[in-house]
């Protein structure tokens, strides 16, 4: 039985996207990784081709597609083995804040650009002294006379260099209860007082322009607030289910790619004239890796279906985020061990997979945070 119902339209979309990736992206990926950057133009190419923000309504230029389109984009982008052109982050994590909580004016102003790729987005939550602990956030947003003045620093912000629009979480220092003090603001590139730091050097995600962002008396119109003042926590909670699910989608896609590559490698690599895959120990490892990927896939598909039915599955999604991201990286590690000395070199694609998957258990709420959330909602 198929848990997710793919239509012909979905299949067709995947075919077109795959062709796009094969010709426009994959041939350049090694260069982007070496450059630690993706050409800004690529976002527009991808948007123009209709592969960004597939969930946005046609009214704003989007496809108005269901969440299966997001899954397809995540899977196909995973195949490209690059992280700079972070379409799922833009389309499924950041833009939905504007789409769901922005005023009609903000939506009209920004969504078409998000869809077309003229606007690249980022969301700025983490701070140097406050990673997963949102209550420790120090960036302030003070609303006065129709303006918001933002001060503070954010770090580990994906798309930090390219973003034209950043959603910033900031606290109102006048509000005692930290959970009612956070608001989300949309800040445009070029706003005075908004500066980017350097590109951060990371273990992996080399083509991804992760950066620090600085706000110094950065003034924006109060209309650029998403939702009510102090509703930030609520808005974040509302969207985190999808963000975590998106992480799990990326993790399962990565795991499947790792399994596929490793099986292929072991079948085609001869050692003393015999394919590696003829070794029983190698076979068992490959079976175990495949099993974990398939088991993770089935769980994920079920949660996607539930998510599309708008079920509250916070416990299950927290479980899926931690389990699938750990699993993907565990598989990458095993892949290196099977491949052996070839995997000591960066030219081996599994090295990139190993380095790229490592962050998955950290971002979008560490896996420890996920377990804490699950425990809380399980009533422990």
């Amino acid at each position: 039985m198929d848990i997710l119902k793919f239509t012909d339209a979905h299949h067709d979309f995947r075919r077109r996207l795959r062709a796009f990736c094969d010709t426009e992206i994959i041939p350049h990926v090694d260069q982007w990784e070496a450059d630690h950057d993706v050409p800004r133009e690529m976002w527009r190419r991808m948007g123009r081709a209709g592969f960004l923000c597939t969930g946005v309504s046609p009214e704003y230029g989007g496809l108005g597609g269901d969440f299966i389109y997001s899954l397809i984009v995540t899977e196909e982008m995973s195949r490209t083995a690059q992280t700079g052109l972070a379409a799922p982050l833009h389309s499924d994590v950041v833009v939905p804040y504007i789409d769901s909580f922005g005023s009609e004016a903000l939506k009209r102003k920004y969504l078409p650009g998000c869809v077309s790729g003229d606007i690249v987005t980022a969301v700025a939550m983490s701070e140097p002294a406050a990673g997963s602990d949102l209550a420790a956030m120090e960036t302030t947003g003070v609303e006065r006379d129709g303006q918001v003045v933002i001060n503070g620093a954010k770090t580990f912000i994906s798309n930090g260099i390219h973003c034209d629009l950043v959603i910033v979480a900031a606290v109102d220092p006048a509000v005692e209860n930290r959970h009612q003090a956070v608001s989300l603001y949309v800040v445009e590139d070029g706003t005075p007082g908004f500066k980017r730091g350097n590109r951060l050097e990371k273990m992996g995600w080399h083509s991804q322009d992760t950066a620090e962002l600085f706000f110094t008396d950065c003034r924006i119109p109060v209309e650029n607030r998403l939702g009510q003042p102090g509703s930030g926590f609520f808005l974040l909670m509302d969207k985190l289910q999808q963000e975590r699910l998106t992480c799990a989608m990326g993790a399962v896609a990565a795991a499947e790619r790792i399994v596929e590559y490793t099986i292929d490698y072991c079948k085609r690599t001869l050692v003393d004239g015999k394919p590696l895959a003829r070794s029983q120990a190698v076979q068992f490892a490959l079976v175990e890796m495949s099993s974990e990927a398939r088991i993770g896939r089935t769980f994920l598909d079920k949660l996607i279906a539930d998510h599309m039915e708008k079920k509250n599955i916070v416990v299950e999604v927290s479980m899926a985020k931690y389990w699938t991201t750990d699993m993907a990286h565990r598989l990458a590690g095993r892949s290196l061990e099977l491949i052996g000395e070839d995997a000591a070199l960066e030219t081996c694609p599994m090295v990139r997979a190993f380095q790229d998957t490592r962050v998955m258990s950290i971002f979008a709420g560490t896996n420890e945070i996920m377990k804490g959330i699950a425990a809380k909602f399980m009533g422990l």
Partner: protein
Amino acid sequence: MTDLDRSQQEIRKAARDFAKGEFDRDQALELERDGIFPAKIWAKAGELGFLGLHLPEIYGGGLGFFEAALVTEAFCRQESTTGCALLLAGSGAECLWRSGGKALKARYLPAVAQARLRTAAAFIEPGVGPGFSSLQTTARREGDAWIVDGEKIHVLNGTGAGLYFVLCRTGEGQVSMLAVDGDSAGIAREDQGPRLGANMSGSGRVRFTGVRVPDGHLLGMPGEGLAQLTRFNDDAAVLLAAAATGIAAGALDRAQAYVQERAAFGRKIGAFEIIRDKIAEMTAQVESARATVRQAARRHDAGKSGTLPAVAKLVADRAAVAVADQAVQLYGGYGYMRESEVERFYRDAKALQLMLGGPGAMKNKIADATIGRKTGKEESKKV
């Protein structure tokens, strides 16, 4: 009956002090990023007598694997990649020590111990497995010399070594080891690019074309190459396991300091039960790896280490990978950044694990020793 005698305690302390004083974090970040060998630190370590402690005294050593392991652990604990580079600088020298002629040893080994000569183990070829049945590199006699032809890959120090230990076919079913001077005509070296870890040592592709090697450069007798390799693998496993223990210990040091300093949810994260649980797990892995490596080194010095070198490498590599991985996790987003150091410790640990054939090779070795070699080459039938 304590663990370390006074002289061993002094050696360990000296190594720690040296590493603390000479290894520079920022410099290490740069050298590692660019794949550059830490030549100055190496020279100084050689000068002060920290290298090749397990070699005979006349060549600059005079202690044992136990002491060499102590130094290696201390170095890698302070600075993973630099520590690995210093250990790997003498890669393969044990083959020369164990099997080389006196003149050859006198010529090269002191230079290894004094950090004037980097050596490289040139064993691997594409598609050649542990049985070396499809070894392509050949050495044929020509007068009083051997002529070497072939290509090796994954040669650590491949582009920077002054002496290569080359496994060659010297006849039908006969594998031998030659020490090939890096200055010899006919050697072409090519860098294989950045490595996952241990990236100050460099992987090289080394091509030998009609390279003339004097007769005295044959280690031992023709046909002894595989036996020498087996022995070398044990020697190397002990020292690499010590390096892995150091990496694990260094990652734990950093994680401990971090969780006692970093605050979240209103208190130091080291006060959270789950963080304490992780630190305890990491501590257990480090201590257990250390005990295993020391036991292996001690027994290796006594000439009866059996499966212990392979066990030590298997166990210490896993400890290093797991502890560094958990250190990255405890650091959160910062742990994924290069400047955190622990991200590099993690990559180094994983790269170390792949050396000498990786966990699979260690397990094969252990199984060979405990339940015997496989009976023939017959493929296992499946149900």
